[in-house]
């Protein structure tokens, strides 16, 4: 699997409804932390999108690069990168970080592109049950068979190490816009 490094983080605007949901989520998190008496562990998530572009280099070889996803049309390959940073003063417990990302509507996951250093990557075809690719099945015309990448509707990364204050990491995956 080839992973493309981010050279620039694009922060994305939220529409009104999304902004509202996000505020509620943050409020909920703070409430939990306050109630338990721990107010200093805070992990910030940054979700960014880039377009994967092919180009011919000076040697005449075809290469891939990431560009801003400002012009996105059907058929384009996109890369989502989720960067997580511990901005708090306490470590996040080892093995406790679980990142779940639904493959966006109108897109299909591209096989083998999910990346996450130090993570276990499982997938789901229904958004509920997660399993590694070799144990994920679907039923087509009454026949149970191994799920293909196009069947994946959700991806889950489980980060094994602890995340100390100031530390960060990222996970990513690629999709193609239908």
């Amino acid at each position, binding site marked *: 699997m080839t992973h493309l490094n981010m050279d620039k983080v*694009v922060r*994305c*605007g*939220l*529409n009104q409804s*999304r902004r509202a*949901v*996000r505020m*509620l*989520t*943050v409020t*909920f*998190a703070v409430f*939990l*932390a306050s109630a*338990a008496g*721990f107010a200093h*562990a*805070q*992990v*910030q*998530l*940054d*979700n*960014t*999108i880039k377009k994967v572009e092919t180009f011919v280099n000076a040697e005449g070889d075809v290469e891939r690069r990431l560009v*801003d*996803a*400002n*012009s*996105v*049309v*059907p*058929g384009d390959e996109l890369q*989502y990168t*989720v960067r*997580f940073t511990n901005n*708090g003063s*306490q*470590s*996040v*417990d080892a093995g*406790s*970080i*679980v*990142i*779940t*990302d*639904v*493959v*966006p*509507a*109108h*897109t*299909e996951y591209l096989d083998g592109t999910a990346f996450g250093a130090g993570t276990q990557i499982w997938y789901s075809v229904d*958004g509920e049950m997660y399993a590694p690719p070799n144990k994920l099945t679907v039923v087509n015309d009454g026949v149970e068979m191994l799920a293909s990448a196009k069947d994946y*509707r959700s991806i889950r990364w489980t980060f094994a190490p602890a*995340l100390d204050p100031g530390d960060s990491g990222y996970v990513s995956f690629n999709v193609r*816009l*239908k």
Partner: protein
Amino acid sequence: MQYLKRLSQLLLTVTGLGISLSAWADGTDSGTSVTNDVQMTFTVGATAQTASSDVTFVVDRKLRLDVGTPNGNWVSAVPGQAGVTASSVQFAVVNNSNDSVDVVIALIDQGALDVDGYDPAAASPITPVGLTVWEDTNADGVLDGGENVLGSATGVYTLTGTFAEDEERTISVSIDVDGAAVAEQYQTYTLVAAVADTGVVIANDDSSNESPGVADVPAALNDLATVEVVFADDGSTFAEDEGFNFLSGPAATGSPDGENDGQSANAAGFRTVGVLGIVKYVEVLWDPISENQYTGVGNATTGNEPKSIPGAVLMYVIGVSNQSALAATGVVITDNVPAGAAEPLQLGNSGAVAGINLPDSVTVDIDGVPVVLDLDNAGVAVDDLVYVRECSLVAADPVNPGVAFSADPSEVNASMGASCDGGATGYIVYFATVDNTAS
């Protein structure tokens, strides 16, 4: 928790919607918002916490037209044809965009320009008259009542209404062909289709692509939330599929249509081909009173030819000649045997039929080519005869042995072989007697 539950329900609903809409042929509709919402759970000192982040982009407007030639690049034309009821050059314009779009076309006269490997440079072009261009609703190549005639000249036309996604329309072009035209004349047209809004060609997209001859206009800073225009059309390798400047007029002939320029093109033309000449004549070979014989053009009986009286023997000759340079296939000659006035005659071996005295051979004329028929039937084992000479035979070959009549044929027919190549001739010859019975 209630909010999280609702959020989860919302996500599942959106996901399900995505699956149901994924079958769109030209991709996700322009303007569709696509959101990715990532959730994270973790613990700090065994206390559960969550975080989330989402990002949304709007699908841009991918504009792509394709122009096809459903009848191929060359359409046969017959000298003397009246355009709108005869063969037509057809162009199929398809909107393969992810949005509806207006379409403006340009029809360009290319004379006898080469298309698709043929090289008609040495041939004279057809002189196009009676040009008619129309939206061929039922794509039958014939101008029907109610179909929208765009005009009677080359130039720029705005097609009616807006093309929906996947919509295909046929533009037909017809001409009248001079009756004096000969085989291997050509008339080629290029049709260029360009995307437009409210009838005005979109000359620049938002990715620094532009129509031929149009200056680049630096696009405003794009962003995730704005629907930008993206040209996504294919180019062409054929020079006659030319780019066209809709703002200032035709581009230089010979420049291929480029990719991602907001327009697509294709070329097709008329070609006078497959002109089969057919000749049919009858000669009186012998009559029972004078017993003179006809032996062919320039024969010795000139001035004293046999007469077509009852009992006389008639010779029917039907020949075809391919006057074009292209092979014609499936050529079959069918002729109705004259009923009543003549009865088919089966010549016996050695041409011996009681009371009839035919010449041993006769020369027939097939489109100017003299051919000698051997009527004494030497070597022919059957009572005959319909002489059949297929097109594939060359002059030195003997005629086919012939086939027997059925007992009382009403017609004769024979294939001219697998192919009638350019310049080839083929024919059938059969015989009959003038009815000698009283009516």
